[in-house]
């Protein structure tokens, strides 16, 4: 035994002092500050991190590790996706059969597919929550505005990745989700065949461009396959790189700004002349030396723990719950109800209340535009690096209202809509379909016009009247744009109420569009 150990020790020392070893690992493992910094800076993978970071950023309940988890899921999706690609052929005649084969005869196939599907869903959630976190801690404020924009683009890419992957199994749920989803593109103004001011026909509109055909078929499948497996992941990888690079350049998370605050005002991006004491007193002890720690091992260790926990949760879930696969896609039998993937159910619910070009094109467009513009229209520099919302009541309540409205719409779409997209309470059976006859009616156009004008007028006038100081910060244009966005958002639940309670179809009917 002793000799064996001795031999092992000798072999190890021989190996670690060999030229080959040293050519790979350029520094030792002793716990010195030098090595800690080198761990990060000499490793391609770890050096996406800064070498040091503010100690307060380590707190798990500050970041919740959501950005890192999203990245982990992205990597996991890439790997599982590669393995699935070995067995999947994007051919409408066999794609579904390939899915069945993956499920039933490919070793570990079912598990791998579960992992892929659930990781995709989890990634949508973590990206949303990450965004919410960044908003709540004001981490989008200068100098990080642009990284927020990148983040919004990554959000869009995440949803597109999920959506494009949705078609590939070629089952009923895939076929109809994509049919309904792409039909929205038909309603695009100018470029959709059915949109307002249409310039095109069904044979050359936006939907045709997306599908490569006027129906969901072979050409759509191969397009979505290429988008899903190549184009979108590539774009996402590039943007993720930029995103991380920015984080590193901005010294990790926004918490850093305040802690390093004493140093350079330019680096923190705070406006000149901004008094230090506007930072909430509770989390900013004055004159405290900024606590800086090495990323290795402090952050890396925590990231490792987060990785383990996330992997464990995902693997257990994938072991217990199989990814859904419905019947073979059939262009003649629409399932009832035909629901979009859950993250788009909010949109599908909105489609009940508005014409497709508003619900399917304008609203998502305005939401994305609004998110992109958020750091640029929010002039309030307060709240950076903290969950304290007291100093930014208006912005946060508007954002949270929108966020929870979206979640609420999804809950309605997922749990309260049954066959025929009829409202079913959770305790109501779908077994016998509800016979519904809902005769809707429209406002006469003068009334509708007056109602909308009144709504907008009051909406634009009241804040000026009630909070002149706050409004005074904005230029007139900025104010009008911001208020129109907000009023539009508040108009959504109002229209829902009008429809659900009073069966109002349109508030305003014009020859060109209906609202």
């Amino acid at each position, binding site marked *: 035994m002793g000799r064996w150990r001795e031999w092992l020790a000798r072999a190890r020392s021989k190996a670690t002092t060999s030229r080959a070893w040293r050519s790979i690992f350029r520094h030792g493992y002793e*716990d*010195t*500050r*030098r090595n*800690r*910094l*080198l761990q990060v*800076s000499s490793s391609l993978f770890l050096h996406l991190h*800064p*070498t*040091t970071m503010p*100690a307060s950023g380590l707190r798990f309940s500050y970041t919740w590790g959501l950005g890192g988890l999203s990245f982990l899921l992205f990597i996991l999706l890439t790997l599982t996706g590669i*393995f699935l690609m*070995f*067995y999947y052929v994007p051919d409408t005649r066999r794609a579904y059969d390939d899915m069945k*084969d993956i499920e039933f*005869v*490919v*070793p*570990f*196939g079912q*598990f*791998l597919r579960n992992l892929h599907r659930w990781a995709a869903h989890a990634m949508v959630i973590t990206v949303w929550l990450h965004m919410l976190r960044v908003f709540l801690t004001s981490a989008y404020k200068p100098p990080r505005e642009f990284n927020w924009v990148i983040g919004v683009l990554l959000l869009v890419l995440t949803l597109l990745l999920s959506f494009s992957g949705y078609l590939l199994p070629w089952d009923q749920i895939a076929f109809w989700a994509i049919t309904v989803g792409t039909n929205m593109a038909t309603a695009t103004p100018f470029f959709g065949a059915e949109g307002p001011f249409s310039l095109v026909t069904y044979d050359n509109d936006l939907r045709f461009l997306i599908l490569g055909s006027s129906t969901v078929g072979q050409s759509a499948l191969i397009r979505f396959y290429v988008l899903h497996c190549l184009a979108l992941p590539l774009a996402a990888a590039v943007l993720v790189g930029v995103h991380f690079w920015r984080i*590193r*350049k901005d010294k990790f998370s926004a918490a850093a700004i305040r802690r390093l605050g004493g140093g350079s005002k330019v680096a923190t991006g705070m406006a000149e002349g901004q008094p230090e004491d506007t930072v909430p007193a509770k989390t900013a002890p004055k004159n405290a*030396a900024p*606590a*800086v*720690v*090495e990323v290795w*091992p*402090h952050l890396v*260790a925590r990231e490792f723990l987060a990785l*383990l926990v996330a*992997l464990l949760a995902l693997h257990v879930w994938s072991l217990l719950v199989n990814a859904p696969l419905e019947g073979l896609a059939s262009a003649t039998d629409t399932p009832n109800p035909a629901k979009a993937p859950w993250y788009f159910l909010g949109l599908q619910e909105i489609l009940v209340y508005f014409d497709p070009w508003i619900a399917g094109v304008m609203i998502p467009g305005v939401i994305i535009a609004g998110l992109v513009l958020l750091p640029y229209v929010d002039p309030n520099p307060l709240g950076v690096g903290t969950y304290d919302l007291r100093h930014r009541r208006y912005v946060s309540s508007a954002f949270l209202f929108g966020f929870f409205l979206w979640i609420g719409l999804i809950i309605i779409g997922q749990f309260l809509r049954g066959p025929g997209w009829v409202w079913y309470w959770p305790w109501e059976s779908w077994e016998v379909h509800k016979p519904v006859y809902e005769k809707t009616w429209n406002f006469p156009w003068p009334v509708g016009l007056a109602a909308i004008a009144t709504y907008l007028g009051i909406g634009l006038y009241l804040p000026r009247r009630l909070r002149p100081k706050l409004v005074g910060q904005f230029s007139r244009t900025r104010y009008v744009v911001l208020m129109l966005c907000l009023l539009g958002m508040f108009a959504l639940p109002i229209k829902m109420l009008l429809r659900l309670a009073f069966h109002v179809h349109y508030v305003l009917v014009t020859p060109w569009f209906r609202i």
Partner: protein
Amino acid sequence: MVDDTTARGDLDRDGKAPPAVGTAGNLWMPRRHWLVKVTWWTFLGSVTAMVGASLRMLSPRVTFEPPPVFKAGFPGEYAVGEVSERWKKKHGVWIVRTEAGFYSLSTKCTHLGCTPNWIETEEKFKCPCHGSGFYRSGVNFEGPAPRPLERFRIALAEDGQLLVDRSRSYRQERGEWNSPDALLRI
């Protein structure tokens, strides 16, 4: 760039106690702690399992090739002395009838797996890839082929048809051609 210079600056000050680090210590250095060992071993085990499962996944359980056993028609459909190319395309087999009986030859050259051609006038199988030549019997006589073509099991099915089983092959150099399954005497 700012980061790099900071880091280098830290390196330059190597040996001196860096500010505000001491309390953290190193979470990973006490490698002998049993919990850390558990972590590493289970993690490495999981990664190994992941890699193993992924590799296993690449080896399919089923293939969509034609079944290895097929019926090749009735013996009367073949003339004595004929090298039949009837099943070459579908099943990769020549069926040869001689005075002695039937045998089925693999159409896979024993050199590197190309498909030779039967040249009637020269009474030989000639591989286009590297010029290997085989007699009617399947025995190699020219070119780089290291051994004769393989023969497959051939028998009579219950309904009197020839039955060829490509899953069982017989090699001349191992003396397996003497097996009754390699030559069907009729």
